C-alpha cells in the first residue's frame, strides 16, 4: 500500500462526519476574547468545550510571569531535561509541585501526555504487569505498549474486577502497576479511589497505584489536589500524575511521589530524556497558576456552582447526561449522526462543545463533551442552556422523549491499545 493510499483510507473514515458539516479536527479559533469566549468563523462563540476549568489561560499573573520568564530566558530551551534543557525554573517548579502535594519528589515533563508515558513506562518494564481501567486515556494505553509490560484491562471503575485480576497474579514475579484516573474526561465520572485503594492495600506492597489527576487537579479535594485528596486516600496513591494544560492553563505535565529514590525515574524514562523541556514561559505560567490555585479557593467554589447550574439545567431539559455532576458533562446522543449534526447546530447558534464518537468513547456512545469553567458567568450558562434547549427541541431530544440521566457505563475505552490484528479497523485512536 502506498502512503497516499493509506492516507486516503484514513481520510475516508472521517468523511461521514465531514459530510454532515464541519471537520471537528480542522476548526481554528481566530481570536480569544476571554477564557470562555472566542471567535470562530468570524463570529463570537461561547466556549463550553475546553479544559480551562479555572479560567487560567488569560489570568494576568500567569501571562505576566510567562512574559517575564520569556524575556529573561528566551522562548525555548532547545534541549531535553537531561541535557541543556533544565533551567532554574524547572527545578523551582518541581519543588513547588512537591510542596503543593506534600510529597518528597516531583518530576516535570514537557506535556501531560508525556508525563503518563514517562511515568508508566519508566516504572514498568517487560517483566511487569500493568492493570488499567478500561476507560483509560490514550496516553495510558500508549504508555503500556511502550513499556512492553503485560497489559491487563479491568472493568471501568470496578474495584472488584481489579481485585479479581490482582488475585490471579498472586505469586507472579514483577511489579504490578495499577493505573486509574481521578475524573474520566469523556463522561466526567470520578474513580472510586477509596475502593481501589483498599484493594491495593490488601494486595500488598508489590502493587503500586498510579493516579492520573489530569482533570481533577484544581477541581476536586479540599486544597485542589484531586480525587485522592477528596476521598482521603492520598497515602495509598503511590504516584500522582498531572498536567498543566487543564486547570493550570498552560502546557506541561508532572508526577509526584514519596517513594524513596523516585528521582531515579528521570534516568529510566525515555519520554523525559528525549524531548525538549517545557519553555521558560510555560514553566513560569504553571508556577503562577499553582500560586493562584492555592491562594484563591473561591475559584474552585465558583467552578462547582457553575457545574451544578449547567448540569441541573441540562437535566431539566431532559437530556441524557453522564452519571454525576462534574465540570466535564457527557451529553449522550442517540447516534453518531445526531451527535455530529447537533454539534454543528450548536456552533451555528454560537455555542462550542466537543464532539466525541466511538470507538474513542466509553461504551460506544456518541457524545457531546460539555465542559464548565469558573470563568463562566451565570449569564453565560443561562445563555448556553437556552441554546441547548432550542437545539434539543430542533432535534427532538430530551423532554417528553423520556431520556434521563445516564447510568454509569459498564465498560469502554477511550484510547485503545493498538492490537495490530484485532484493531485493524479502528477508526479513531
Amino acid at each position: 500500500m502506498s502512503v497516499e493510499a493509506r492516507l486516503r483510507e484514513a481520510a475516508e473514515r472521517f468523511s461521514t462526519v465531514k459530510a454532515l458539516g464541519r471537520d471537528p479536527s480542522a476548526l481554528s479559533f481566530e481570536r480569544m476574547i476571554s477564557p470562555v469566549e472566542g471567535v470562530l468563523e468570524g463570529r463570537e462563540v461561547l466556549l463550553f468545550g475546553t479544559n480551562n476549568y479555572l479560567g487560567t489561560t488569560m489570568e494576568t499573573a500567569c501571562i505576566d510571569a510567562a512574559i517575564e520568564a520569556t524575556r529573561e530566558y528566551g522562548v525555548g530551551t532547545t534541549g531535553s531535561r537531561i541535557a541543556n534543557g533544565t533551567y532554574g525554573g524547572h527545578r523551582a517548579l518541581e519543588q513547588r509541585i512537591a510542596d503543593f502535594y506534600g510529597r518528597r519528589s516531583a518530576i516535570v515533563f514537557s506535556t501531560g501526555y508525556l508525563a503518563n508515558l514517562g511515568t508508566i513506562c519508566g516504572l514498568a518494564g517487560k517483566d511487569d504487569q500493568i492493570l488499567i481501567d478500561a476507560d483509560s486515556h490514550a496516553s495510558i494505553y500508549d504508555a503500556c505498549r511502550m513499556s512492553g509490560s503485560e497489559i491487563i484491562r479491568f472493568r471501568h471503575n470496578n474495584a472488584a474486577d481489579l481485585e479479581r485480576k490482582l488475585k490471579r497474579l498472586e505469586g507472579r514475579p514483577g511489579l504490578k502497576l495499577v493505573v486509574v484516573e481521578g475524573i474520566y474526561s469523556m463522561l466526567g465520572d470520578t474513580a472510586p479511589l477509596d475502593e481501589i485503594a483498599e484493594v491495593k492495600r490488601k494486595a500488598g506492597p508489590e502493587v503500586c497505584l498510579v493516579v492520573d489527576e489530569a482533570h481533577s487537579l484544581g477541581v476536586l479535594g479540599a486544597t485542589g489536589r484531586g480525587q485522592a485528596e477528596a476521598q482521603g486516600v492520598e497515602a495509598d496513591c503511590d504516584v500522582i500524575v498531572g498536567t498543566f494544560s487543564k486547570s493550570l492553563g498552560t502546557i506541561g505535565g508532572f508526577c509526584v511521589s514519596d517513594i524513596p529514590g523516585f528521582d531515579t525515574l528521570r534516568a529510566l524514562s525515555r519520554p523525559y530524556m528525549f524531548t525538549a523541556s517545557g519553555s521558560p514561559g510555560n514553566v513560569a505560567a504553571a508556577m503562577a497558576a499553582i500560586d493562584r490555585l492555592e491562594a484563591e479557593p473561591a475559584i474552585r467554589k465558583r467552578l462547582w456552582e457553575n457545574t451544578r447550574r449547567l448540569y441541573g439545567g441540562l437535566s431539566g431539559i431532559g437530556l441524557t447526561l453522564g452519571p454525576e455532576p462534574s465540570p466535564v458533562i457527557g451529553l449522550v446522543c442517540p447516534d453518531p449522526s445526531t451527535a455530529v449534526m447537533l454539534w454543528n447546530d450548536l456552533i451555528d447558534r454560537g455555542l462550542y462543545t466537543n464532539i466525541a464518537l466511538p470507538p474513542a468513547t466509553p461504551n460506544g456512545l456518541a457524545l457531546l463533551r460539555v465542559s464548565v469553567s469558573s470563568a463562566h458567568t451565570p449569564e453565560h450558562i443561562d445563555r448556553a442552556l437556552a441554546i441547548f434547549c432550542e437545539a434539543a427541541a430542533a432535534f427532538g431530544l430530551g423532554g417528553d422523549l423520556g431520556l434521563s440521566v445516564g447510568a454509569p457505563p459498564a465498560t469502554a475505552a477511550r484510547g485503545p491499545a493498538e492490537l495490530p490484528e484485532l484493531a485493524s479497523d479502528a477508526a479513531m485512536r
Partner: protein
Amino acid sequence: MTDNSAETRVLAMLAERLGRHDLTPESSITADAGLDSVSVMDFVLELEDEFDTTIPLDQLSNVRTVSELGAVISRLRGPVLEAAPRSGLNGQSS
C-alpha cells in the same frame, strides 16, 4: 490433542452477542464479525468472566480469528481447567 472447547464457547458467545449464526472458527473477529477495536476489548472482558481467567491485551496482538482467540484462552487456562466451564454455553461433551 488440542482442546477446542474454548474456541467453541468463544464462537457461541460471539454469535450470541452479535445475533449471528454464520460465523465459523476461521471467521475474522474484526473483518467478518465486524467488531471494532474497543468492542473487541469489551468482548475480551466478557470472555475473562466466562473463563475465569485474565487475557492480557498484549497477547492479542497476533490474534485474528475466533480459533486463534480460543487458542490463546486455552493456553492461558491450561489443560486441566478446560474441563470446568462456568456457564451453560455448549461446547463441552462431558
